């Protein structure tokens, strides 16, 4: 009887794992099948020429660079807030602090807020301050989207820091601020992983940048200019009636996937390398 039970659950686990893997492979397969033939050097080096969306020449380097600018800016902006927040919650407030619990709870809620809500919220604020759709607007909105991810994942590792390490640093006569700097070193592998999670989430999101970063066929030259992004490039190209352009959408998706893959592999590499320095 126990053996049957064991086998049923084993079967269910293998089934769900292979189902998910199958879907993933199918997505990759269809992206590769339609995208690979359309992937050309022009795609990743040229900006769209007139009539690009009707099948004429050009590429999507505006969207590639736009996405990279947006995510780099957003991550830096977001880190500037999330690291101090996590340090405050974990190393300034007491273990069972009411404020810390409330903050954790609210970040959990923010974690679940859909990206279109962040987009709409960012848009409202931009209207209030009279900012037009721009690189800066997009950065700020993506920063808001990824902040809960950064905070909660850094927080998870910060909670595991042994109290002995905090006391060891303090008992050397370090101030609280000096102690926090040591803790940031201790948390480096965790911070790297969090950043890469956040990049994965932020770079692939279309809804946040739709109203806030806008779209442009040019590479943005300043923070106040609108910026294209890969998810929107995919969206616009898919909407074209021309099949060739639709195929280019798949090629763009392939480029996005490759960027995310590169980032995840470097994530693993860096966190492995950095964790060697960890206690």
């Amino acid at each position: 009887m126990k053996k049957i039970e064991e086998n049923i659950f084993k079967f269910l686990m293998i089934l769900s794992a292979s189902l998910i893997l199958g879907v993933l492979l199918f997505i990759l397969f269809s992206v590769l099948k339609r995208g690979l033939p359309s992937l050309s050097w022009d795609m990743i080096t040229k900006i769209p020429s007139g009539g690009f969306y009707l099948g004429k020449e050009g590429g999507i380097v505006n969207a590639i660079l736009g996405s990279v600018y947006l995510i780099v800016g957003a991550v830096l902006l977001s880190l500037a807030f999330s690291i101090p927040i996590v340090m405050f919650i974990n190393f300034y407030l007491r273990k069972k602090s009411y404020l810390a619990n409330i903050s954790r709870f609210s970040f959990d809620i923010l974690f679940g807020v859909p990206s279109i809500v962040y987009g709409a919220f960012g848009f409202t604020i931009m209207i209030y301050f009279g900012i037009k759709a721009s690189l800066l607007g997009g950065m700020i909105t993506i920063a808001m989207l990824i902040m809960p991810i950064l905070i909660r994942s850094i927080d998870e590792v910060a909670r595991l820091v042994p109290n002995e390490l905090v006391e060891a640093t303090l008992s050397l006569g370090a101030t609280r601020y000096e102690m926090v700097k040591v803790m940031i070193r201790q948390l480096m592998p965790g911070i790297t992983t969090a950043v890469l999670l956040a990049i994965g989430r932020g770079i692939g999101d279309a809804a946040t940048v739709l109203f806030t970063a806008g779209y442009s066929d040019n590479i943005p030259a300043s923070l106040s200019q609108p910026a294209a992004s890969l998810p929107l490039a995919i969206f616009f190209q898919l909407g074209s009636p021309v099949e060739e352009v639709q195929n280019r959408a798949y090629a763009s998706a392939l480029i996005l996937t490759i960027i995310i893959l590169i980032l995840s592999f470097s994530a693993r590499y860096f966190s492995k390398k950095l964790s060697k320095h960890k206690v």
Partner: protein
Amino acid sequence: MRDPEIEIKGNNALLSETNKSMDIIVNPLIRIEGLNLYIQNNHVLKDINLTIPDKSITCIIGPSGCGKTTLLRTLNRLHDDSKEIKIEGKVFVDGVNIYDRGVEVINVRKKMGLLAQRPCPLPMSIFDNVAYGLRIHGMRRRKLVNQTVIKYLQYVGLWDEVKGRVRTPASRLSIGQQQRLCLARGLAIEPAIILGDEATSSLDPISTKKIEEMFLKLKDQYTIVLVTHTLSQAKRIADHIVFMYMGKIIETGNADQIFNYPKHKLTQDYIKGSFS
């Protein structure tokens, strides 16, 4: 066996009955007066009066949960961050009540090196671990930092073992080496006092022996206070013993006297091993 400087003063009213055996010392580095500590509503340390002799090893012994570690941690104010802990009484270090308002906790901690139960190297290289304390206390000149780091690594006998790899992460050292590194790190900030909280309990016998030898070597220059629950260790290295039970100091005195002629029934039982 080194005897502390003894001088009987007329005014010893501050010292409780139990402490009379621990000779009265002029201007001791550490003196505790009427210390009471509560964790929430539990009275954890009860009316502690204690003078710790300078430049010798004092071991605090007693069964688990008797408050040894709690007492040790009051000496460098490690309880500061726990809201539920309430402390009454005075702890004089170098003539200053460290619980007075206006006393800077950093200055208190600078006077003491703490050796924890488990070695806890900072997430940086071997070199930087020792240099860290120097740097935060304002030593900037590279040459001086180098010299000081090497001096203390040599002092704890680690230099020959690590000299080719001082820039590698400290976490790669063995546990015993890490504990000696932590000692070097503590000594580098030139404290007057060394606190050890069961500092050898996570170490193998050989590393334990090395650390104990270090303590014996250090006691000429430092006042050492150790919490230990291995009686044999106390017998090996202690000059003075403080025996605690249920948050009270039961008996204090020279190691010889406590181990061979304990006055109190509880001390006798504990030393015989009737309870632990």
